[in-house]
């Protein structure tokens, strides 16, 4: 029984995200590799980057991008290399090309629209306020006196 459980444990054991044997000796290069791998999506997982994924293909990609870095590629060249093979699906931060510009402009655009509408509302309310007399009318003053006396 123990042996069976041991076998089970070994078969199903997870391949752990970044493995010690993948880590590059040069810390600066390794830091770049980590930064790149955080921005690339594991092609077979549910919304995980290759940096955190346990899938074998992610390991292959991590090793591949480190090889490119060691060869002297720049960060963009490495990313382009992988996108050319796996498609833009692997980019966790989509580029702003084509219709993606809508995605990138959505935040500032919507903010401007909202600020415009909000400003309009505030102005309208403020104007309505300006039309309202600040001081009390004579009738109101008289009524106030009555209330205070009673």
């Amino acid at each position, binding site marked *: 029984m123990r042996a069976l*459980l*041991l076998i*089970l444990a070994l078969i*199903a054991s997870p391949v752990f*995200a970044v493995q010690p044997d993948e880590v590059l000796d040069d810390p600066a290069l390794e830091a770049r590799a980590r930064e790149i791998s955080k921005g690339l999506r594991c092609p077979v997982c*549910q919304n995980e980057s290759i940096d955190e994924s346990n899938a074998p293909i992610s390991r292959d990609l991590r090793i591949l991008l480190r090889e490119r870095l060691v060869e002297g590629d720049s960060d963009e060249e490495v990313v382009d290399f992988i996108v050319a093979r796996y498609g833009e699906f692997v980019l966790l*931060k989509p580029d702003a090309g084509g219709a*993606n510009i809508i995605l990138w402009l959505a935040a500032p655009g919507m903010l401007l629209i909202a600020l415009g509408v909000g400003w309009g*509302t505030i102005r309208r309310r*403020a104007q309505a306020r300006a039309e309202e007399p600040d001081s009390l009318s004579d009738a109101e003053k008289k009524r106030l006196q009555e209330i205070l006396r009673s």
Partner: protein
Amino acid sequence: MITELGHFALILAFVVAIVQMIIPMIGAQKGWRSWMAVGDTAAVAQFGLLSVSFAALTYAFVVSDFSLNLVFQNSHSSKPMLYKVTGVWGNHEGSMLLWILTLALFGASAAWFGGNLPDRLRARVLSVQAAIGVAFLAFLLFTSNPFLRLAVPPLDGQDLNPLLQDPGLAFHPPFLYLGYVGLSMAFSFAVAALIEGRVDAAWARWVRPWTLAAWLFLTIGIALGSWWAYYELGWGGFWFWDPVENASFMPWLLAAALLHSAIVVEKRETLKSWTILLAILAFGFSLLGTFIVRSGVLTSVHAFANDPERGVFILMILVVFLGGALVLYSLRAGAMESKGVFSTVSRESALVLNNILLAVSAFVVFIGTIWPLVAEMLMGRVLSVGPPFFDAAFTPFFVGLAVILPPGAMLAWKRGNLGRAVSQLRYVLLLALAAGALTWAMQTGKSALGPVGVMLGVWVVLGAAFDLWSRSGRGMVADRLRRVARLPRADWGKFIAHAGLGVTIFGIAALTAWQVEDIRVAKEGERFDVAGWEIELRGVERVQGPNYVSTQAEMVVWRGGREVTVLRPEKRVYPVAGMPTTEAAIRNGFLRDIYLVIGDPQTGGGWAVRTYIKPFANWIWGGAILMALGGFVSLSDRRLRVAAGAPKRPGNAVPAE
């Protein structure tokens, strides 16, 4: 037998909900009191029947009745009792039943505590609430019935997903549902108000506690989920911008906006139609979240019911309710006349800005979440939108919110003086800048994230504290302290919740900026150094759990030659589900967590080991707890419990003009 009773009660609840949907609405239209009163009885009856149904399902899980298909697929006889019970909602059908039960609970609460509401409004609210119930009960009964039997009961079950066998995740769904579904009350009130064509301070006073309750439960639910991800997934991430996380985050943002704008409606009778729109959208996003989780249109680590047929059904519910409410809104919103006026610089304007930032940030999350779907359907581009996008597009909104919060919260209603608010806050501002500068000087050659986080955290927390203090009037410190203690609970709630936001902002920035990671192969008996901490891998052994096998490492943490703690990270395999999980071992601390993970044995001997030093990690959830606590404190304020529309009690601490 008990199962059949549960099934029967569910069908009966469906019928009751149909009655509750139709009769009170007609009664309210025609002014027939007896018809309106049906709503109260039906709401309570519906809740009772659903409780029976839920209890029956729970019973089947507790006794491991594998003749029920659902129990067979999601339970196992050797599972600990806690997870047998929580397994009831660890699956699509059972969680949907819990969702509906929560919905009925809110409906029944409106009947129980709504005695001081106008009859007509209450009848309409209950009717709209029942309409939502009817839609989801139909969904449950016709597409995902939890009470289906198996002709030949198997000997044992297939076990619950091991990731869900965890205390953090066990209670994550109930809190989330209390939040999601709690927003249905705001929705029902909004639709009822549109039908009546009238929104006033009393309405807002009714909507606000429900929204606040929903928001604080959502806060707890999201925090539990994030905490779970932190310790369970094995690398200490706490937020992934996953579609399902976003699905819970969007209603949270809109609920936060709604509870602020409802204050404006209550106190100043303005921003009415915007508040109604927010109430509709907040629940609309809850429904959207339900759709995202249960249809599987967006790939996600959470998706647990990828069934197109169910997806289409929920999409129809979403279209009918959100579309219907928005059509009603476009017809009736014009009738919501605003009364209160305010000048450009005022608390009202500050809250408008708060609402703009929260609503647009929710929109950003929304567009990022659905963009892959849009791109694929309209342009045939298969792409991903992940954390780097959200970090870049979303963060500025919360920085903005944190910056405007302290002065905005101190502005007077109607007509404020920004210069005075800022000059009152000058010491807080100086302290925040000094703390930021000090942090900048102390950290070596890193990003601006840490110092900015410290600055914003100090600014928001001290700003909130100063706001509370400034309400104590003038005089001796002792007198002021006494008066601060006697301030209304709503003021204390505001302080606690705002301070919580500051704490969370600081925690996220600090953890992201200063985390240290170490990945290496360690042999048994070997010691290594990580950021001033020495870690020793003492040994690794196999341990047999109740329904899993574990590889457990014993690791000792040293600091300056002194033993700090012994940690036992594990790697578990659940044989029945055939799934491995990592169980990180964490030494929780006020200033930092030490987070250890054990990996695979290496061919050359030794084990893969990951060590993280995570500074201020617990502040993230501590802040969330504070936010929820602030909500509770505010809810307990007398003002929210007194009859709606009753005169305000004297000494109400609204700052004078």
